[in-house]
């Protein structure tokens, strides 16, 4: 073993390579929490008032809208899909909710209608993609376009309706939930996340989601029905998106069809930053909760730096890529041979 040491792999490469075990540990959660805390500390140091209770509460409210929509997106990403109809459904939930409430309809009925519409559109997405084996990207783009257009026609592209008063309170950063000092919408978001976690861990369809995402062909042979699971995942995504839209009405006051537009990429970014793989089969819902928090913190931080919205966007884009680089990296082609 004397002259053999001539073949030393480049040190630099070794430093950059994270061992599979470390990467596994990283993608399993702690780093997402560390990221959330780290950005919070940076914000506290850099932006006056960042860590004030009011500002934290406000961030949580904003995060809950994103978080609920991203929760739905998570299900779709777990089966290896992507849902681009989220913004249209947020817009639809928002407009329908505000219009019907403005016409004096009972809020329970309104919520039911909103949820059913989201669920149906989502289920159509799921069925179309699974029955004809079409790329979800294109299908959801198309249905999103149809739904968005229909809402436009219905409202004639104007601001309409009004949010019920309880909803305004429900989503106000200043309000609290019983003894808890955060707005009810935040509690709702976290409760939904817990339910979703139980669903994916402790139910048969929940486990089947992972199998379908990891290997479609093998899943079929293991009696996983691609149609059912796709319909469920896309349906949940649709329902949660339209719910987020409805809740946003409390924030915006009236129904506006464009309210969902920023959520197209934000909902995907929250899922990815949380560490759920776009290739399917790997990830989880709590990660998306953390991903949503990270994104909202970042945006607040950038606003606090008094950057223009344009510059914010540019920085955000770069940060998303860098954060994902920490734990969202694919396997090297060498390791896959």
């Amino acid at each position: 073993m004397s002259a053999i040491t001539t073949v030393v792999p480049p040190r630099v490469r070794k430093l950059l390579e994270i061992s599979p075990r470390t990467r596994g540990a990283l993608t399993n959660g702690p780093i997402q929490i560390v990221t959330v805390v780290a950005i919070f500390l940076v914000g506290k140091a850099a932006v006056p008032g960042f860590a004030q209770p009011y500002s934290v509460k406000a961030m949580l409210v904003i995060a809950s809208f994103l978080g609920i929509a991203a929760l739905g997106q998570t299900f779709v990403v777990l089966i290896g899909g992507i849902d681009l109809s989220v913004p249209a459904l947020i817009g639809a939930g928002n407009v329908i909710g505000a219009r019907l409430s403005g016409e004096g309809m009972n809020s329970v009925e309104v919520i039911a209608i909103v949820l059913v519409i989201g669920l149906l559109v989502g289920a159509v997405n799921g069925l179309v993609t699974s029955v004809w084996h079409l790329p979800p990207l294109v299908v959801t783009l198309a249905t999103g376009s149809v739904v968005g257009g229909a809402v436009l026609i219905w409202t004639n592209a104007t601001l309409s309706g009004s949010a019920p008063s309880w909803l305004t309170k429900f989503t106000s950063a200043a309000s609290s939930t019983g003894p808890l000092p955060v707005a009810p919408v935040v509690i709702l978001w976290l409760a939904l996340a817990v339910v979703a976690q139980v669903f994916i861990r402790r139910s048969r369809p929940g486990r089947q989601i992972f199998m379908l995402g990891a290997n479609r062909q093998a899943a079929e042979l293991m009696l996983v029905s691609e149609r059912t699971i796709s319909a469920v995942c896309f349906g949940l995504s649709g329902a949660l998106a339209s719910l987020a839209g409805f809740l946003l009405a409390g924030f915006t006051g009236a129904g506006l069809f464009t309210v969902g537009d920023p959520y197209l990429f934000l909902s995907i970014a929250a899922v990815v930053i949380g560490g759920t793989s776009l290739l399917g089969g790997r990830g989880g819902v709590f990660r998306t909760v953390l991903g949503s928090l990270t994104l909202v913190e970042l945006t607040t931080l950038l606003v606090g730096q008094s950057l223009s919205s344009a510059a914010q966007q540019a920085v955000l884009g770069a940060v998303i890529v860098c954060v994902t680089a920490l734990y969202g990296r694919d396997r090297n082609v060498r390791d896959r041979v």
Partner: protein
Amino acid sequence: MINSEIRAVTLETTSSDVAGTPGAAPAIVEVRGLSKRFGATRALVDGSLSVAPGEVVALLGENGSGKSTLVKLLSGVLSPDEGQIFVAGTAVRLRSPRAALAAGIVTVFQEILAARDRLVLDNLWLGHGSPVLSRTAVTGRRRLASEAWHRLAGHDVDLDRPLGELTLMEQQICVVVRALLRDPKLLVLDESTSTLDVELRDRLFAEVRRRAADGMGCLFISHRMDEVMAIADRFVALRTGQVVGVRRRGEADARELIRLISGRDVEAGARRTGTVRRGSAAVRLEDVSLRPGTRPFAATVSRGEIVGLAGLEGHGQDELIRCLAGLQTPHSGSVHVAGPKGRADDDPAAVTTYRGGVARGVVYVPRDRKVEGMADVLPIIDNYSMPTLDRDRIGGVLRPRRTKTRFQRDARTVNFTPGRQDSIGRLSGGNQQKVIIARWLAAEPRVILLNDPTRGVDLKTKHELYEVFRGLADAGAAVVMLSSEVDELVHLMDRVLVFHDGSLSAELAGDDVTPESLVSAYFGRPAVPTAPTAPTAPTAPTAPTAPTGGH
């Protein structure tokens, strides 16, 4: 003991191959002291090996013995932690497959690596640089490609078809021809024969011999002892990452080699003895014809027996097992499966869908583990429990502990010991197969369909699997197993159905199942009854004991 052997090996290789030894031709490729670790695992320790011009060296070892690592180091996929590779006496660093190819080391990997969307022609010339292609260069490539294909396969191929439309065997031929087109100095064949049928395998061996006569070296890796014995001039055995022995042709028989690589005695190729306790019919095929125009046939599989399906690749056995699984419907006729009481007459029902089959106790272990058998990123337990999850529900909520208990029970049955690994992708091929079989045991199957289940599985695990299959049959299941390996058919099966041209051509049972009778039936010739020991068979089928089912 092992240590002394290694030292001896190292001494031998270094003394015989050091540059400057007069008379001996310099080795085409020599590796010295090659080591590679992955985290805490030492995949290869101080591996040394050389291949001389015209020499065929067989690399033997069980899964995890370091063969694949050595192949990946030689092909530039991985870089060694220690040690050197010499090509024609010069030390080289193979940083990428491209560098290895440039050095004349051409590898055909175990998995068929091919761009299935691209045309056959594109695949054959994949990676050959990108010159500005003139019309003559293009026609030249076409001609060379079709010539090379014809020489290896003995038939022509449509070069303008997408590769994915070809059969698995043709895809395998494609990657071998691709390697040959590069005019390798050293050809590394890593399990490249596993999808080839007997005829093509012999053609490949002939081609390797022809090229070896012109000075090419070959490193040949296979789990099949008969193949290894047929082609290799020298054998290098690996065990747990270390070279444990080198033998020349004639110095050792199959038994000796198996002892070397496994560290113990394993029976190979012996015909299993004992009487078969046949139960009632579990599967009945009535007037089944697999393709338009093929002769319809009938067959029955009873409980308690293991029936082999055999034939050259693409002659109908694969279609039949898929028909039995309900994954495809026969061109005509029907497949009947006995009902829950286990008597075909009780409740014979035609199986037309996969789910319908599973509901009647027909389970299927697919051929391609990675694609159809499992999700390699998911935990072992998920891969085990997926189809039977509803048993673990209490009030609609899954209880992971119940799943775990079930898994421990079924894992014992298939002789699988759960280790520290979490995802199934980290297990060896044999252990993956055990998990997949355990998955279906949980469904309490009456008919077990196994599509070439020991493909790419090392000898030791193979024999463990045989015991499992035997145990299942003894417990009353009907086992139908497609196998492409003659030894396996001889060793394990109670009966063998041989297919030719899309139809059943012979049914062999008992002592009629011999290598010769099988091979002649493969080619559609009537089976010769008993015959003396085959020249290629590693051991005479006279061994009195056979590893029958441990239960």
